[in-house]
């Protein structure tokens, strides 16, 4: 994303901030917005959020690093998030993670070298009655088994114009 915010984005930020008694309260929604637009919260986005809301950039980074949902590096095109908390673990999330590691060739926290898939684990996504659960690009799936995983991945790979079969074994840190 360009270091300079467009007029539209600035207006959107202004509208968000106007809903709160003080502009600083809009930090989380603004960070979500900037991350959606540019894929990550880098020092550029930190400065943009800071300037837009009258904050010191250092305070922005304090908040960014406190939360798990803000990424400092772009994720892959598709983010697969697997819950590994209790109900899901008891229902077999470990096997799901293992399957995904095998198929994608990456560890949780990493992105495939072709930049298509990022795998992350999560602490309870609130879908416990449909364990084991995961999200794909924010959409909930559960209960999921190996077949379901394979199906979802196949669909995504088709979407990405990739062939069948396992992804490259090279990995990038996400």
């Amino acid at each position, binding site marked *: 994303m360009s270091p300079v915010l467009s007029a539209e984005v600035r207006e959107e930020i202004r509208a968000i901030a106007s809903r709160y*008694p003080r502009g600083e309260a*809009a930090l989380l*929604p603004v960070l979500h917005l900037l991350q959606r637009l540019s894929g990550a919260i880098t020092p550029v986005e930190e400065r943009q959020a800071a300037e837009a809301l009258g904050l010191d950039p250092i305070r922005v980074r304090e908040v960014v690093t406190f939360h798990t*949902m803000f990424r400092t590096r772009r994720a892959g095109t598709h983010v697969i998030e697997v819950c590994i908390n*209790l109900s899901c673990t008891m229902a077999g999330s470990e096997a799901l993670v293992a399957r995904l590691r095998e198929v994608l060739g990456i560890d949780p926290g990493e992105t495939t070298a072709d930049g298509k898939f990022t795998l992350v684990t999560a602490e*309870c996504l*609130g*879908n*416990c009655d449909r364990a084991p659960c995961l999200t794909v690009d924010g959409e909930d799936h559960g209960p999921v088994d190996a077949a379901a995983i394979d199906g979802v991945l196949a669909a995504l790979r088709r979407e990405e114009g990739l062939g069948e079969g396992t992804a490259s074994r090279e990995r990038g840190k996400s």
Partner: protein
Amino acid sequence: MTTTSLRPLMDAAENLFRLDAYRRRGGYESARKALKMAPSDVMAEVRKAELRGRGGAGFPAGIKWGFIRRDGDKPVYLCVNADEGEPGTFKDRWLMTHEPHLLLEGIIITAHAVGAHSAFVYVRGEYEGAARRLEEAIAEAREAGFLGEKIFGKDFDLEVVIHRGAGAYICGEETALLESLEGKRGEPRLKPPFPSSIGLFGAPTVINNVETLCNVPRIIGEGGEAFAAAGRPGDGGTRLFGVSGAVRRPGLYELPIGTPLRELLYAHAGGPAEGTSIKAVIPGGLSAPILRPDEFDLPLECSVLAGAGTMIGSGAVIAVGSNTSMLEVLGVMTRFYDHESCGQCTPCRIGTSWMHKTAARLASGDGESRDFDELVRVAVSIKGRTFCPFGDAAALPVLALVGKFRAELEERASEAAARKRSC
């Protein structure tokens, strides 16, 4: 919502969450009625209802509202705690997704009672769908004149703002929620002062859980006494119990307060899943100390569970099956609290990590029996010493697990050690 459904709540049919469908079910009539009442009368009704907070702390809502200082020069704020992060809990997600107008109606009545004209719904970041659903509902409500200026034709303005979190369980603690809402790290605040006097941006603030507020329309509709009578003395009404784990029918069950745990598990949730038995139950979310089968007759009631050394918490009932390793349960438990500790205070910051490191070492086969004693000791050193209740949430479940399932834990640890040696 009446207490007739004693089966797992399936996904509601298409569009039942919409305003027109909600109104056909009698929606917003309680709000209309409440706005004709004096705020103190609304509060009195909720006090009579003996509605306890449904988020985990179980504090009586009517009494909490009574602490609010309305007479100062600062506005009163209402914050809705939709940060639902307690592992095992999914009721608020369901409510926001399928009954968004019920929540809005509860917000309207509560705002009127406490004198708030701004309500902020802090939705955990991962619930993007629920947040969207709420935004849509707000738009519908505004159009119908139920939110915005002069709602229901009364001289009362109310704006509801949906505010998404970004992945931090601790933001479910009410003062950490306020810090996060103010644009800062979600670190709990020193109390006193309490949010009812100094809360959001220094103004008097009420913070209530989603489910708590969802009960308010019913209380106004049928009266506080009827609501109280549906539950137990001091703990009125019904609540949504979320069952997950080794049961045939995981899901949400709306049942009266005081329903025995055994009844919930076996009569409603269908008993143990195929090929397993239930060897333990966590009755109120991961932070509620675990129960053995001989404790399954306990009623799901705030004070009774507290007296039994556990808690009703978020009403999230997790059934642990016989095929689950208790060492794995210990690992998930300690990993979760290590991951979610805000890090402010010494015992929690270091202690949660210490417990996780020890549990991980035990799971990997490098531990021994005395490590369980160490775990207990660390948990005891955290208990009662921390800045906020997160410390107890981390320590008490470990104490209960190790205290009640020591034999199995030791066995699993030995197995892991043997596996490691044979590699």
